[in-house]
């Protein structure tokens, strides 16, 4: 009843192609943005913001990146952590090597470096497909981890191996004026802006002919080639965009969330965790990346906080084991019930909403 789109007609192709053609959706997204940009900074406490919301946003960005590669372009990747690491370390080198570079540029450069590495590891994807490619991405993951631990140049030859990320500061050129993002709220807003802008950009790419090319290669790469898509270019563009997003996410993770740049944060567990996000959230869906990231971020909290409420006091490592089990069960559950994840369930829910409260 409330969600009816009756009476809303697109009168030209431009309206028909909008990201949110239905008015109710548009209102919804504006509300969400208002809550995100205005309500949350004013009301949410620091702990929640820094421990949950900000990492959620960054991981959602990484999940977006992986979704581009695996969900839209169909190239399974197990090396997300590695690409995040490249972004983080590249950003660090730029920040320390070119001290005058604005922080936004530093983070974007981290993304670009990661895009370059992504393209390199994507080149084999023409000859190597499916599981073989997944193993190639694993190779990337392990090799990159090793590289950043062993080669001192990346850590500026730090003796302890733990390097502090430079502060997030925006300065006006030729002045001494500097705005430092050093409070939780400022960091949150910084991250939020980055993520929203990049998510919008990604959505735009996905609905263009480039995105269609990715989906064509995913669905039937032979047919795609015969009708004129260059397979290598299409796959490489997916690797590039995906790695760029993961790289920026990695840089944000180091600079905003951790405060340090360490390879351990970007290991194989990270890669798997992000893969779970997009499976649960929905492959091939921008919304799905956010839903999945939210889910995976909140689940450990639920598992830690709910049992005591029920009177069960579980040991910490037992909780971790149970977490693994729950992840496993959820993955299988979602793959059986709805391979397109929570995002599809959401779309189906909206369909039902159109007729609610009537059954037809």
């Amino acid at each position: 009843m409330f969600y009816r789109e009756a009476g809303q007609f697109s009168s030209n192709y431009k309206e028909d192609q909008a990201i949110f053609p239905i008015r109710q959706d548009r209102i919804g997204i504006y509300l969400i943005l208002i809550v995100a940009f205005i309500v949350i900074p004013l009301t949410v406490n620091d702990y929640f913001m820094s421990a949950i919301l900000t990492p959620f946003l960054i991981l959602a960005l990484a999940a977006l990146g992986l979704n581009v590669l695996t969900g839209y372009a169909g190239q399974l990747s197990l090396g997300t952590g590695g690409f995040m690491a490249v972004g983080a370390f590249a950003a660090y080198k730029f920040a320390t090597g070119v001290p005058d570079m604005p922080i936004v540029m530093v983070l974007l450069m981290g993304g670009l470096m990661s895009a370059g590495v992504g393209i390199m590891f994507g080149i084999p994807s023409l000859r190597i497909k499916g599981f073989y490619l997944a193993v190639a991405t694993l190779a990337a993951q392990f090799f990159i981890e090793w590289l950043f631990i062993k080669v001192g140049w990346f850590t500026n030859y730090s003796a302890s191996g733990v390097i502090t990320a430079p502060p997030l500061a925006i300065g006006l050129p030729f002045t001494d004026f500097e705005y430092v993002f050093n409070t939780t709220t400022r960091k949150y807003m910084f991250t939020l802006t980055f993520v929203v802008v990049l998510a919008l950009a990604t959505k735009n790419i996905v609905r263009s002919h480039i995105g269609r090319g990715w989906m064509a290669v995913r669905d039937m790469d032979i047919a795609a080639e015969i009708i004129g898509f260059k397979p290598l270019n299409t796959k490489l563009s997916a690797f590039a965009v995906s790695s760029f997003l993961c790289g920026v996410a990695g840089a944000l993770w180091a600079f905003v969330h951790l405060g340090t740049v360490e390879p351990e944060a970007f290991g194989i567990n990270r890669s798997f965790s992000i893969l779970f996000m997009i499976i649960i959230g929905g492959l091939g869906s921008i919304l799905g990346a956010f839903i999945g990231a939210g889910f995976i971020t909140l689940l450990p909290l639920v598992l830690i906080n709910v049992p005591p409420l029920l009177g069960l006091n579980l040991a910490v490592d037992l909780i971790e084991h149970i977490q693994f089990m729950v992840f496993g069960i959820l993955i299988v559950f979602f793959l059986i019930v709805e391979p397109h994840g929570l995002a599809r369930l959401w779309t189906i829910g909206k369909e039902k909403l159109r007729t609610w409260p009537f059954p037809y």
Partner: protein
Amino acid sequence: MEDFLIEFYFFLEVLISGLLTGTLYSLIALGFVLIFKASGVFNFSQGAMVLFAALSFVGVQEKFGVPWPVAFVLAIGIMVVFAYLVEKLVLGKLVNQEPIILFMATIGITFFLDGFGQTIWGSDIKVLDIGIPTGPLFLFDTILIDKLELFAGLVAGLMVVGLAIFFNKTRIGRALRAVADDHQAALSVGISLKTIWVVVWSAAGLVGLVAGIMWGSKLGVQFSLSLIALKALPVLILGGFTSIPGAIVGGLIIGAGEKLAEIYIGPFIGGAIENWFAYMLAMVFLFFRPQGLFGEKIIERV
């Protein structure tokens, strides 16, 4: 001349040790090949199965105090139950989905199994000792070989021969190959997919148990076993996903290559290259022969 001989013997030691470690990788890869050959499913949880089987083996001995042959049988029983459950709850519900979905389901199984195994049997490192000979053995009085590795190599060899005979000569083996080719077609000629899958996952469980016992004797039963299984992936790439001899040859090449690289190239670039060398080797191979050494060339039809 003396120096050269010493160097040469050392090289042989490293080579043999690498080859024998390679057979251990092959054992794990065999589990993958079995399942892939028979069901077209790339079973990412093979490593977790190895760990779970070994944990069950040791756990049963601990909790019920039975001698190890009994524990062996019980562990096999547990793996059969596992195979049955996987078929019923996972594979059976995902028939006809794309391979990538099935693959991701096995990732889910991996996580579940890792968590479950440690919940039931605990997560401390367990000692596995069933009397396999250990210690050094001197070949020609000069070349050092580890007895355990030698024993493992022999066991692996026996398993391979047994499995090869099974696949090629028996009726069930033929049915397994039919299923690997085309689920629908196999169904339509009356092959019961359910039974086949349970059989093959049980077989993979058995292979996993043997691999787990070998590795567990060498390193103790611990969580990292599951990660060693990831090493089997380059083996599969080299050998092809559907070839039993390929798993052996692939394992030998990876095992030897890895050890040799670590000793001879490692010091120049910082060491600890064992983590990724196997993968890089596999990737180089993939470039020249995307289907592996023994894999089948797929002809695509439009």
